[in-house]
Structure formats: structure tokens, C-alpha cells
């Protein structure tokens, strides 16, 4: 019998249909992967199951009974525990409180028992083999630990169904392994787990069954062992396996490089990054590889003038420059698409057109305005060029999927006609199809003579796309590989040291 079942779930947001009649079922004692591209409706479905949103139509059955949860708390009482995408915790409260809040152990008088709370928190963390000071503020720990704290919280209640929405995106390899061990243990105890991830390897490592959504519709549910990987991807993006192979083969590296565009000698900043040389030529794609916190983004921030450098010199097109603000970098025709697009990139309540216009307008100053018509033409051009999926340029950007938001950000900077484009994790949290498109786009830009610095934590991408790779470890450059020496093995070796 199915533990959880949804029938004909529909959801509309402001006229946009996010879910179009989804039937979905999970059995007790299985790990069920919910797959789909960004914007396919996975998170929306989860939020409807757990009572964050009401469904526009359809019904949810849990334990054989129809349920209409009005809040996550309702769902939790029924036995559904959820770890939502992105760390959704309370940074300024202690770890113990984050695990126990809303269900703190109480003394006989009904007041919170602080000692017992710590004990309970430690116990919950011990289940994941974590031993940290639970009295410290959550924000004093790394994102990875915070993610595990969120999972510990979800497991701290008596639940029959555990939902993990992208739990591994901020974990390193060992932490992922630990998490999978726990998931398998829970499965043996008879718990059902819904697992959402972008990492295809991970799906096959733990899942028993896979359900695929596309454009708000159910594609199908399959036994994991009967569904080859390439077919899963094909079903997710709605293309045949052959078409995907073609897409990936379609990435042709540019080999004609021009003059040096940007050169930095010994730039560094105490406590942020040790002095490093960076140079890049026209048409070249330079990769920065390394683990999280190795100094990749820090280099980008220094080049773009976000952080001042306290050593070294830089030249742009042969002229000595010193950027102490992003404005100056923009004037010199550098563009940076920063790591976290939600925080530093998109302005959710502006339209696509307005979002694209921002950087160009900023570089022109506020007096030289463009007419609405010019703006519309420009938005139209980039929507076509980058294949942004939207009914029109007047759509608010917050209604787009992650991949399409990223494309709008790229369009914003392309509009300023940069000579050097820095992409910091452009493919993070976007789906396979959009990734391939963005990779192809950077190659195309290089072909047109643009210099591109590409930062990604997915080494395959760096290896596949870059002409030269600088490898970083512990805020230091530890090596550089170029041309045919670029291989996953070589880069990994340098990273590992």
C-alpha cells in the first residue's frame, strides 16, 4: 500500500500553471527520487504535500486518509517531516534551539527545560554522527553543518515520511556519504523518503524508485534499476537520448586566442587570498577550480573591485588599472555574474526587461536614458539569443525558473558589451538542459573574442569548457593546467595536493 498518494494535484500562481494534475505515490520503506528540471514543479509539489500552499485542485492521501494540511506543522503532526531547499533555519539562535524550537522539552510547570533541550539536540545530531557545541549560534557554523542541523531537526520527530529537498547541494563527498548511510538506515526502519537532487549519481546511489516531472506534469514513475541514466535525463528535459549526446558533443572549444585582455601580477588580500597571477587572452576561457572556500570567488571579487587588493598590480588591455569599486571595473568593460543569484543578482519584482537593463543603465549614468522601444528591442534580442523561456519581456523575473533567471543575468551583462566576463557558479542549481545551453553560450562568446573566467564547483564542466585552469587550494594557487593537460584526473590531483 502507498503511504503517500497525490491525485490530480494542480497549482496556479498568478495565471501560471505550476502543476497540471500530478499523480504521485510513495511506499513505506523506500527512497523515492523526485526528479525534474528547475521549474518542473518539484518544490511546488512538496510544498503542497506539506501544507505550505493549498492545492488549486486534487487531493493528497496520507496513510490511507485524505489530508488537507494547512501548515507544515499540521503535516509534521501527521508524520511528514521536511527539509526544504536552501537552509531554512534561524541563524541567530543556537543550534540546540534550531533543532528543538516549537517542540522544546518542558519542565512540569510548562517552561522550557534548557538542559534537556541541549541533551535532545545532541542526541538528534548524534544520529548523524555530528558532535558540535549546540549552545553556539547556528550562523557560526558552515553551511554544510547547517544543512545537517536541518536534517537532524527533521529526524527529531517521529515521522513516517521524510522529505529532503536538495539536501546535498552544500555537502562535501564525505558528508554526502554519511547522509546516505543515515537514509539507508531509516529506510530499513520502514521510513519513506522523498529525495530531490540535481546530482544524477546520487539518485542512483540511494534511490529505489524515480518519479520524473516535466513542466508541471508527471512523466512517469520507474524502478531505478530499470531506468538508464541517459533515458532519465531525456525524460527530464523532453529530448531523446540522441539529442542529448549531440548537445554535449556540440561544445567545441575555441582555439584562436588574441591579445592579453587582463593581467594581474601577485594580486592578493591578506586573509582572503594569497598573491596570485592571473592573465587571460581574447577568446580564452579560463577556469578557476578548487573546493568551496579555496579562494575561487575571492579572486573574482578582487578582479571586479568588490574587495580591494592589498598587493599586486593589474593591467587591462595593456593599461595599468586599479579597480577599487565595481563601477570602475564595469567602465573598463569587465562583467561579473556573482555566485548567489538570489542575493546579489536578480531584482525579483522587476520585469525581465528591467533586469536586463540594469547594468547598462548603471554604466551609462542616469541621464542618458533609453527609450522604452529601444529597451524592448534589446530585451527581445536577448530573450531570443539566450533562449529565455518566457511569454514576454514584461514578465516579472521571479516567475522564471532558476536556469532562465541565470540567463537573464547573463543577458544583463552581455548588454554592456564586456571584454572580460566572469561567471561565478553560473550553473549552480539549474537543470541539465539549461546547463548545456549556458556552456554552449560561453563557448560561442569566446568564439566572438570575449575572454571568459569560469568558476564552478562541478569539475566536469571546468574540464569540458576551459582552455586553461587555475587550481586553488586553501586560498592559494597550487597549479595551472592548459590545453590537452586538462583532465579530471590532473585537476583532482592538484586539488587534493
Amino acid at each position: 500500500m502507498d503511504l503517500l498518494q497525490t491525485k490530480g494535484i494542480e497549482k496556479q500562481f498568478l495565471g501560471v500553471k505550476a502543476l497540471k494534475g500530478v499523480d504521485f505515490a510513495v511506499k513505506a520503506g523506500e527512497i523515492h527520487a523526485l526528479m525534474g528540471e528547475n521549474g518542473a514543479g518539484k518544490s511546488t509539489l512538496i510544498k503542497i504535500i506539506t501544507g505550505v500552499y493549498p492545492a488549486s485542485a486534487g487531493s493528497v492521501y496520507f496513510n490511507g486518509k485524505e489530508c488537507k494540511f494547512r501548515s507544515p506543522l499540521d503535516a509534521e503532526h501527521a508524520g511528514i517531516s521536511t527539509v526544504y531547499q536552501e537552509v531554512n533555519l534561524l541563524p541567530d539562535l543556537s543550534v540546540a534551539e534550531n533543532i528543538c524550537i516549537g517542540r522544546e522539552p518542558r519542565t512540569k510547570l510548562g517552561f522550557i527545560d534548557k538542559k534537556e533541550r541541549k541533551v535532545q539536540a545532541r542526541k538528534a545530531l548524534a544520529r548523524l554522527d555530528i558532535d558540535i557545541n549546540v549552545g553556539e549560534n547556528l550562523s557560526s557554523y558552515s553551511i554544510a553543518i547547517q544543512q545537517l542541523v536541518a536534517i537532524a531537526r527533521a529526524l527529531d520527530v517521529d515521522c513516517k515520511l521524510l522529505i529532503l529537498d536538495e539536501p546535498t547541494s552544500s555537502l562535501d563527498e564525505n558528508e554526502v556519504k554519511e547522509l546516505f548511510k543515515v537514509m539507508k538506515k531509516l529506510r530499513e526502519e520502514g521510513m519513506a523518503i522523498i529525495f530531490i537532487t540535481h546530482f544524477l549519481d546520487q539518485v542512483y546511489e540511494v534511490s529505489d524508485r524515480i518519479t520524473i516531472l516535466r513542466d508541471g506534469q508527471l512523466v512517469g514513475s520507474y524502478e531505478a534499476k530499470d531506468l538508464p541514466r541517459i533515458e532519465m535525463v531525456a525524460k527530464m528535459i523532453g529530448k531523446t537520448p540522441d539529442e542529448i549526446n549531440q548537445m554535449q558533443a556540440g561544445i567545441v572549444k575555441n582555439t584562436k586566442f588574441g591579445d592579453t585582455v587582463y593581467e594581474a601580477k601577485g594580486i592578493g588580500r591578506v586573509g582572503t587570498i594569497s598573491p596570485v597571477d592571473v592573465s587571460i587572452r581574447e577568446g580564452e576561457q579560463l577556469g578557476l577550480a578548487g573546493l568551496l572556500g579555496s579562494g575561487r570567488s575571492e579572486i573574482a571579487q578582487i578582479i571586479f573591485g568588490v574587495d580591494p587588493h592589498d598587493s599586486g598590480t593589474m593591467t587591462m588591455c595593456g593599461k595599468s588599472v586599479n579597480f577599487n569599486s565595481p563601477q570602475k571595473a564595469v567602465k573598463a568593460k569587465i562583467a561579473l555574474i556573482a555566485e548567489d543569484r538570489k542575493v546579489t543578482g536578480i531584482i525579483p519584482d522587476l520585469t525581465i526587461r528591467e533586469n536586463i537593463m540594469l547594468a547598462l543603465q548603471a554604466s551609462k549614468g542616469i541621464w542618458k536614458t533609453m527609450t522604452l522601444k529601444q529597451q524592448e528591442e534589446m530585451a527581445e534580442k536577448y530573450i531570443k539569443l539566450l533562449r529565455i523561456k518566457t511569454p514576454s519581456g514584461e514578465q516579472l523575473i521571479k516567475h522564471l525558473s532558476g536556469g532562465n533567471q541565470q540567463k537573464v543575468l547573463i543577458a544583463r551583462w552581455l548588454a554592456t558589451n564586456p571584454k572580460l566576463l566572469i561567471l561565478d557558479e553560473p550553473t549552480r542549481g539549474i537543470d541539465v538542459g539549461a546547463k548545456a545551453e549556458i556552456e554552449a553560450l560561453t563557448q560561442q562568446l569566446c568564439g566572438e573574442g570575449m575572454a571568459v573566467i569560469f568558476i564552478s564547483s562541478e569539475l566536469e564542466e571546468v574540464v569540458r569548457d576551459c582552455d586553461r585552469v587555475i587550481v586553488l587550494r586553501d586560498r592559494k594557487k597550487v597549479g595551472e593546467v592548459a590545453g590537452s593537460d586538462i583532465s579530471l584526473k590532473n585537476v583532482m590531483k592538484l586539488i587534493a595536493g
Partner: protein
Amino acid sequence: MKKFKFPMRYVPISATILVFFIVYLIGIISFDNFGSPKVFLDLFVDNAYLGIAVIGTALVILTGGIDLSVGSIIAFTSILIAKMIATGSNALVAIALALAIGIAFGMLQGWLIHCFSLPPFLVTLAGMFFIRGCGFIVSEESIGIKNDPVFNFIQNDLTIKLGKGMNLRFIVIVYIVVLLAAIFFSQRTRSGRSIYAIGDNELAATLMGIPVGRTKIMTYTIAGFCSALAGVVYAVYLKAGNPLNCVGLEMDAIAAVVIGGTLLTGGVGYVFGSLFGVLVLGLIQTLIVFDGRINSWWTRIIVGLLVLAFIFMQNLITKISKSKSKSQ
């Protein structure tokens, strides 16, 4: 290996306490009688009503909200009590009615804020005008409270005599009791912790299953009660009601909360800190009164600078703790 680390979250409140002692020390060094227990006690007597109002404001600010109706509610309740007594009602009935109106008004504001997702600033701004106006409907002029048996009882019989001419007045006891209750509530009850959770990250709090709506309405209800109680204390303190009183008092309350180490964006701070926020404000006032030469409006200038200093400090602390978690 355990290194002793002073937790970052105690820095602002420690700074507040430090400022309090520094100002106190300046007073003792500069003036002969400043250090006398009487001056210290008067600090509480003169600021009991403000202190009670600040407790409500502190809780509201901890949820990430704001309450601008504080001063108006104080004025309204004090004039209501005075008018009712003047027209022959029992003082206890008047006080009970005043408190009930405060509670109901706070609850209404909380309900509007939650159910219609309205900004607290605007809702309580509307509330501020509304209830200020109501005060003038009750009476356009100040009304004194004379020879009321209940008030006399509070004044004479409920005062604890400490000897040497010093008295612990009932309004001070009320303040201390409410303060202790609020500290305990905020630290040791689920509802209290929910207030912090909402102020820290409302979306996360919702997703963590915390009853956000209920907690918010409750917080504004408590704030309404605190303001009304402050009004009662104010009437007892002045033995009068006046619809013109306490204009802009909510700003003093907000200043006291900030100086007390609470982050205006919510989620960080202690109700305990608001005590020192109020005491610092009171001390500066006392200091200037003692001096006698300086214009008393200098209080405002110093308070302004202090608030600014505390905002800078909190900004710095937020940055430090952010860069710390980044570097891990």
C-alpha cells in the same frame, strides 16, 4: 581543548551595561549626592511607565515589527482613568477597563498586521492617530485625580518603606514584576522563543512549523497591554491624565530598545537589555538635571548620539559574525 570565548551575542548587552556604569560613574564623580540610593530609586520611579512600555516595544521589535501606538495608548488610558474617576466611577473599574482596551487594541493591530500582511509601521501609525484622537474625545484637557481611595491606597499602603526616607513605590514593584515575567517569558516559553524565530527569519519559522500568525498577534496584544499598563502607572505617578501627554514616547521606547542591545531587524537581543536602555536614558536626564546649567534638551542630543553609536556597533558585530561563518 576548550578555549573560553566570549559569545558574540552577549556583546551588545554588555556594552549597554558598560555604558550604564560609565554614565553612573561620571555622575558620582561630578556631583556629591549622585551616588545616593535615593537618586537610584528615583530613576526607577520616574521611568517605571517608560520601562513598562519599552518591554512591549522590545518584544515587538524582536519579531521584526514596530509599534508606534505606545505613547498614544498611554495618553488615552491615563485620561480615561482620570475622567472616569472624576465622574464617580470606581478607580479599579477604570483601571480594568483601560487595560482591557489596551489588550483589545493591541490584538486588533496584530490581527490586521497578520491577516492582511500589512506593514506594522503603517498599522500602528494609524493606531497612533486613532487612539490619540480618542483621548481628546474623552477630555480635551488635563484632569487631576484627587482624593481617590484606591489611588491613596496605592500611594500610601502599597509603598514599602525602606527607611531613611526611602520608599519603594508600588509602580516600581509593578515594573520589576512585569520585567521579570517578560524576561522569563521570552527565554523559557515556546511562545517566547517563537518571537525570536520570527524575527530571525519569518519564512524559515513558518517552514519549521512555528505558529507565526498566532505568535505575532500575541506579541502585539502584549504590547497593547504593556502600553495600557504604562498608562495606568503614568496616571498613578502623575495623579492626573492628559490627552496631550507622551507624544513621541514610542520613539524613546525604540531608542531604549536599541540602546538595550536589540537589533531593529528582529531576532537578536534581550528583554533584560531594555532595562538598561531605560536606565541609561533616565541617567542622562538625571545628570543634566543635577548639573542645572545645561539646557535639558541636551538629553535628546546625547540620546541621539548613543543610538547612532549602538547601531554602528551592531552593524560591526553582524559583519564580524558573518565573515566568521564564511571563513569556516
